[in-house]
């Protein structure tokens, strides 16, 4: 693995081996629960989880990280412990996503660091080792092999990621630093998530109990009562899944989902909670928009888009039962 200094681990704390890191620094987990000087770090760790659960990105204060007591590295590591102890998967998901976004910002900055070439080199190395993506730096930006690009881009819905909408020269796709990092967002999220999930769960640590309980409480807030989805077409199931994971569903997808459910007779109140995991959830706006669609507050009632339309938005994942229908609403209806 890449050789990391303290500065780097502050930015990418998920690269550190938690247990080893702590013991190398001469700390044990138990100390954090009891030592009054270290308690603040547990508090910070808890805050870090709360911030993430709200879809915000935890702001770094680099000056707080002296090498003897790198607060932010510790707060990350302790946050992971708290999450493991709570066993709340929704929180782990949210935390990984937020930490991924945070790391994304640093990666992007490091890629573009023209003063310090070692920073660029290191971020390129991280991309290579974590995602086996070979990125080259050019005068104007970055390039990546077409095949590597496609591996990631086919998971995106937005048309700007289609290969046709990229500059492609001599087997390579040209990207900005932002796009380069954006390309591995999902994988970065998944990387952090699996790393947390696969780390071993410690026994309860004295002094951590209240935090863990609070987290369990908090997690309840995010539980989604999934609408019965058995007879739903794959496009709708997929949209619900994306939202449940707290990932971003493009506007077209939300429109499809909302109009579909409204047409199936669900109420605005039943549907709104589905959107609450979306990174940009705002309950008032959501209710307002849903009301618009349903025709309660406005005048028009919107129809569910046709399969063709859904397909053109890359939101269609047809199964054999889709063969004979032209609108998702017809899915599962028996022909007479």
């Amino acid at each position, binding site marked *: 693995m890449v050789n990391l200094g303290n500065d780097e681990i502050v930015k990418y704390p998920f690269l550190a081996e938690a247990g080893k890191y702590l013991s190398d620094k001469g700390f044990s987990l138990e100390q954090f629960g009891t030592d009054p000087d270290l308690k603040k770090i547990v508090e910070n760790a808890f805050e870090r989880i709360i911030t993430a659960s709200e879809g915000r990105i935890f702001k770094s204060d680099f000056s707080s990280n002296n090498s003897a007591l790198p607060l932010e590295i510790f707060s990350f590591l302790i946050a992971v412990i708290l999450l493991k102890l709570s066993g709340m998967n929704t929180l782990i998901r949210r935390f990984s996503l937020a930490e991924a976004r945070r790391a994304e910002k640093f990666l992007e900055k490091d890629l573009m660091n023209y003063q310090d070439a070692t920073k660029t080199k290191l971020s390129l190395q991280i991309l290579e080792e974590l995602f086996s993506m070979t990125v080259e730096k050019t005068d104007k930006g970055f390039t990546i092999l077409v095949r590597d690009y*496609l591996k990631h881009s*086919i998971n995106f819905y937005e048309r700007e990621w289609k290969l*046709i*909408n990229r500059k492609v020269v001599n*087997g390579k796709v040209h990207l900005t630093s932002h796009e380069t990092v954006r390309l591995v967002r999902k994988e970065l999220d998944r990387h952090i998530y699996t790393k947390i999930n696969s780390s071993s769960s410690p026994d309860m640590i004295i002094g951590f109990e209240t935090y863990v309980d609070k987290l369990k409480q908090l997690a309840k807030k995010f539980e989604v009562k999934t609408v019965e989805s058995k007879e739903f077409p794959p496009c709708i199931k997929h949209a619900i899944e994306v939202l449940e994971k707290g990932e971003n569903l493009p506007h077209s997808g939300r429109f499809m989902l909302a109009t579909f459910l409204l047409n199936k007779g669900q109420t605005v109140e039943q549907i709104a909670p589905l959107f609450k995991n979306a990174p940009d959830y705002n309950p008032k706006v959501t209710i307002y928009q849903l009301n618009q669609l349903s025709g309660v507050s406005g005048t028009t009632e919107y129809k569910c888009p046709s399969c063709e339309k859904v397909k053109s938005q890359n939101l269609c994942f047809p199964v054999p039962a889709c063969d004979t229908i032209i609108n998702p609403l017809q899915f599962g209806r028996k022909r007479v």
Partner: protein
Amino acid sequence: MNAKDVTFLEDTFKKFYFEHFDLLHVPDNPNQREFGYQKFNGGMNRHISLKSDKDLHLLLMQNKPSDVYCSNARYMFPNLPMAEKDWQNAEIIFDIDAKDLRKEHPKDNTLIKCSDCNEISSLNESCPNCQSTKLSFTTLTCNDCIKSTKDEVVKLKQILTDDLGIDQQNIKIFFSGNEGFHIYVSKSEYDDVGSKERAEIADYIMFRGSIPETFGFRKFNMNKSSLPKFEDDGWGGRLAKHLYGTKSNRPKILQEVLSGGYTLFQKRLEDFRDSIGIKIDPNVTQDIHRIFRLPGSINSKSGLTKIFVEDLKKFDPYVDACFIDDEEVEVVTNCPIEFSLKKKKFGPFNNEQVSVPKFAAVYMMCKGIASSV
């Protein structure tokens, strides 16, 4: 097809294969490929595994197939059902066919068959015999079609090398045996790329799904837009050439595009698919489990052979891919238009018994307009 014609064609094909074993080879890694064949009037036999040229030749002699196929994919277990084959990788293949290029049926080279009364006639809106409009169209040899298909192949090759970085030497062109070309890309970094990725590559080549932003059009900051220049790489440059015609036209057209607005430009980009997009069949490229006509084998739609094309410019399929001998045979044929093979003209024939070289007889029988006597 009647039994007599089937026997005639089977024997002719078999003779060709027997005399041209040198043209028929299993591809590299034969034991990882899936083979298949069809018989005249028969269904498809798939999931066959062959180990060597010898196995292949045996299959040709024993089964007298009308068509022979082989997968571009390599599998761990090519003869198991699809779900268990264990796909490894596959050459990426592009199919360019005259039928996808034509805007309309070429008048002098197309004949119609009436589905109601079976009458064959030259191109018409309806059947001259019974006025039915249930028609099927058959194109006979057409040099214009071959020419435009070749042009498309050249454009494709350019994109494959310039944009996608594929080594010229790894691009192999085959005449499909009827009226198109198969372009094989082997030993490239795209070999183990999956179906979704291939679909993206196909869209790229076809110029499908582009948006104005890609070409510098700024929706919300229009006067900051900068449309592509002639010298730009990739689609930028190709679009520029198409859009402006000449370099000096750029400022004028640029103004026009901007004042037309975003939606109009989007619409124009979609229209450009027809003019600058390469007309490949995307389904062929994205299907990673397909079996393709085996090079060296005869295409039963024409009696011509699928064959490697060394020099595309000079290649004349109606001479270079026509391997059947010229022994005179008698056939009854109804061929209201002329066609030409091996530099000889044939037809029109008006429901008559004629004596023609075997290659012409086979061609007409494959096209369904002649029968042996």
